[in-house]
């Protein structure tokens, strides 16, 4: 408990130092500091655009989708089909990992298998459709095909193992605490 409080203080101090550094950079025209501020602004705006709609969709999902539906398609009895479903769901995820985590919790609450959830998380990092199209246009379609066809089986197998191991140990995903 004490170390948690200490960490909180350290974070607060770090945050103040960070803010002061950015202000100082602008006053003195320190370029790397200014770049940091621009990156901060860019990513904050991006989050501000993506997160509110993403969370409202998560809210609608929690209210409307029945537990039985998720258990049937993504539950522990869904097998490989569940993992493929997880990949398809991930393909349409906007943003990346940081959107996938809250979605993962909601899936978990509705009875999705842990292994399927880990597949979904990894797939939302590597299989997003718009990103893959964009990648192929810069690095060639061969590159994207190799990347996906090697990583997807590895993701499914490792997620199954990790899911099984954690389920046996009674592991639970938390609601962002």
């Amino acid at each position, binding site marked *: 408990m004490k170390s948690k409080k200490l960490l909180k203080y350290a974070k607060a101090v770090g945050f103040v130092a960070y803010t002061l550094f950015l202000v100082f950079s602008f006053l003195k025209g320190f370029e790397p500091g200014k770049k940091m501020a621009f990156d901060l602004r860019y990513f904050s705006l991006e989050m501000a655009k993506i997160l509110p709609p993403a969370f409202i969709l998560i809210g609608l999902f929690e*209210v409307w989708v029945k537990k039985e539906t998720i258990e049937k398609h993504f539950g522990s009895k869904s097998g490989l089909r569940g993992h493929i479903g997880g990949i398809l769901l991930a393909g349409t995820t906007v943003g*990346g990992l940081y959107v996938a985590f809250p979605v993962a919790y909601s899936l978990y609450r509705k009875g999705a298998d842990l292994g399927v959830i880990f597949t979904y998380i990894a797939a939302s990092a590597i299989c997003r459709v*718009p990103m893959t199209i*964009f990648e192929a246009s810069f*690095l060639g379609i061969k590159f994207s095909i*190799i990347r996906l066809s090697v990583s997807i089986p590895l993701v499914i197998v490792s997620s199954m193992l990790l899911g099984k191991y954690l389920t046996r140990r009674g592991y639970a995903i938390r609601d*962002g605490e």
Partner: protein
Amino acid sequence: MGKRLVPVRSKEGIYRRGKISMYFLYLLLSIALVISFIADRTKTYRAIKIAFKKFTKILPAFAEMLVLVSIILGLVPDSLIVHYLGKSNMFQGVLMASFFGSITLMPGFIAFPLCGILLKKGITYTVISAFTTTLMMVGFVTFPIEKSYFGGKVTVMRNVLSLFIALIVAVMTGIFFGEILP
């Protein structure tokens, strides 16, 4: 140092691509909200309330991530990545690329043009693959968020697993492109 290597002009077209998925997201949201509202008003309000609660709960972790991203991108500018990856042999290159890919977070419209530049500089597909795959799968800066949902231990486990997967993908890419002899 510190300058973006990706030309600004070409960004315009790329930005638009990024926006397509954003339009899709907002379109989906509008349709879902309208249908939900017609079907059941109180349920819809409850959904928005849940969304707000979840969002405010995780917001501090997102703030942490934003600060981390800006610091790391400040310390590791694109030019540094190009410099280091260009000067090393393939083994060092893969290790360094996985390191850079793991600690940074970039939107696709910066990351992939950067990879295009790396490719033109003669950097192998193997190294580029290690970079892009770790960039996507291994998240150092997303640690605060992932930890809030999955706990520290599982977050570390997932990221280490992802790092191994990325290394295997890099080696396989090298084999398929004839850069590494099987």
